């Protein structure tokens, strides 16, 4: 028995595979007298005792939040009601109704070519595996690509229960932006606004490039798989001054409501106590609240259940608004 045979047998036995006892004894006897095999066994044991990668807890929590929301939305979808389907369940994606647009600047185009070339080269390197993958499309995998399970709706206009669904929001830092639609080719120069972490209603949350159209800071172009989507900053005015909605919780998937910053205790009464006190009304007539002894110039809160058409309409929680620069 040579080194290869001995170590392959020991490797299989290590994985709990059935191995002929006689062959295994021969393999062990060989390894006991062979420095190379001894080294192999040492690494084999070390790999087995090394800690395996662990999924970050925040990732597991995020998956729980997303699938929990999908589960709740799916349950609501079983009960016919009048409100529109939650955007988080829409499988008709924003890009589906939009012609694809080619808008990247030349530098971005070059980058795309480079990335594509890299991907192709890698796929070429992976040729055998990719081929196998094509063969291994099982019945279960077919099912994965087939119809959604019961309770999950395909159409955006399906009836659904519950309070109004959140508009399709994204957040940049803490600022909140609401979808306006797909972008035509931007006519102005896009200025990088940073990265927005969002699913864009496509199921996969990841960081995406976002841009301002020139000097305009009221609109945000977010680059998805099918092109740009335009988002508009959610604002209201008070005394002619514009305030923007902010959120403590990053809005990483459509179907999430902006949340009150954690520095404020959640109000327990309609007058805002214990965190807030009434401070008048904004230009639309919505009552605003400030921290005790505070000033609206520093920002204000708005209670739930604002009137239809209000920029916070439908949000079941309190919202916080800060003056725009």
């Amino acid at each position, binding site marked *: 028995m040579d*080194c290869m045979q001995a*170590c*392959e047998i020991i*490797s*299989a036995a290590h994985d*709990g*595979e059935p191995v002929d006892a006689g062959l295994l004894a021969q393999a062990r006897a060989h390894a006991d007298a*062979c*420095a*190379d095999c001894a*080294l*192999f066994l*040492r*690494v*084999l044991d*070390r*790999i087995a005792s*090394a800690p*395996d*990668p*662990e*999924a*970050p807890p925040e*990732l*597991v929590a*995020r*998956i*729980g939040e*997303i*699938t*929990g929301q*999908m*589960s709740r939305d799916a349950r609501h979808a079983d009960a016919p009601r009048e409100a529109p389907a939650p955007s988080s369940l829409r499988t008709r994606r924003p890009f589906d109704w939009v012609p694809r647009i080619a808008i990247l600047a030349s530098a971005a185009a070059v980058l795309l070519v480079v*990335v594509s070339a890299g*991907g192709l080269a*890698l*796929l070429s*390197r*992976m040729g055998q*595996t990719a081929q*196998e*993958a094509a*063969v*291994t*499309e*099982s019945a*279960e*995998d077919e*099912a*994965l690509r087939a119809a*959604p*399970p*019961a309770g*999950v709706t395909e159409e955006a206009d399906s009836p659904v229960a519950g309070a109004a669904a959140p508009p399709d929001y994204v957040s940049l830092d803490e600022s909140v932006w609401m979808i306006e639609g797909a972008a035509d080719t931007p006519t102005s120069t896009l200025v990088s606004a940073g990265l927005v972490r969002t699913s864009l209603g496509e*199921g*996969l*949350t*990841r*960081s995406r490039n976002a841009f301002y159209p020139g000097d305009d800071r009221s609109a945000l172009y977010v680059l998805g*798989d099918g092109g740009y989507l335009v988002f508009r900053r959610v604002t209201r005015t008070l005394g002619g001054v514009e305030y923007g909605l902010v959120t403590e919780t990053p809005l990483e998937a459509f179907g999430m409501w902006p949340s009150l910053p954690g520095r404020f205790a959640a109000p327990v009464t309609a007058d805002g106590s214990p965190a807030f006190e009434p401070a008048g009304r904004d230009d639309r007539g919505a009552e605003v609240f400030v921290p005790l002894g505070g000033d609206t110039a520093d920002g204000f809160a708005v209670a739930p259940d604002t009137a239809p058409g209000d920029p916070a309409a439908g949000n079941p929680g309190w919202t916080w608004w800060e003056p725009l620069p």
Partner: protein
Amino acid sequence: MVTRPMSDLELANAAASGDESAFAAIVRENADAVYGHALRFFGDRTSAEDATQEVFIKVFRTISSFDGRARLSTWLYRVTHNVCLDMVRAGRRTPQPVDPLTFDPLPAADFADDVVFASALGQAMGTLAPEERDALGAVTLFGLSYQEAAEALGVPTGTVKSRVFRARRALAALLLEPEGGASDGLHAGV
């Protein structure tokens, strides 16, 4: 009252019927394997996190199609394998290959250090051929038998056996330098 653990099929059926705790249990039990496989596949954490999230969203949407003929871990492995490949095919992510020539064997002290060794092992995985990495992940992270891995990958059982062995042989050559320098036999040609 003694409660017995739910079978894979019972757990999947419970999750499919809307039991959030059942699905959470599936995520909890398998997140490390899915993430670990994706991390070794792509070589970077961001891609691994995106893949893991996509895997479980896909599983959530299709859990009702799980029929219990295979183990849940086999099914999850197959979904993970396909999601990773789909991400590459779509050009959304590119695995980061590691050149074995840039890899130095670990000194004995580092070899014994869990943190250093795990990090080196992760890097060394990047030098493996994708099919070797795949087979090794199926067996060591998802706990599949060679036969289960073979069925999931659509290759003969012997192919899985040899890929797992080749992967380990390559890792051994990279991670621990033979006493007295390079040798022949097992380490030749790696």
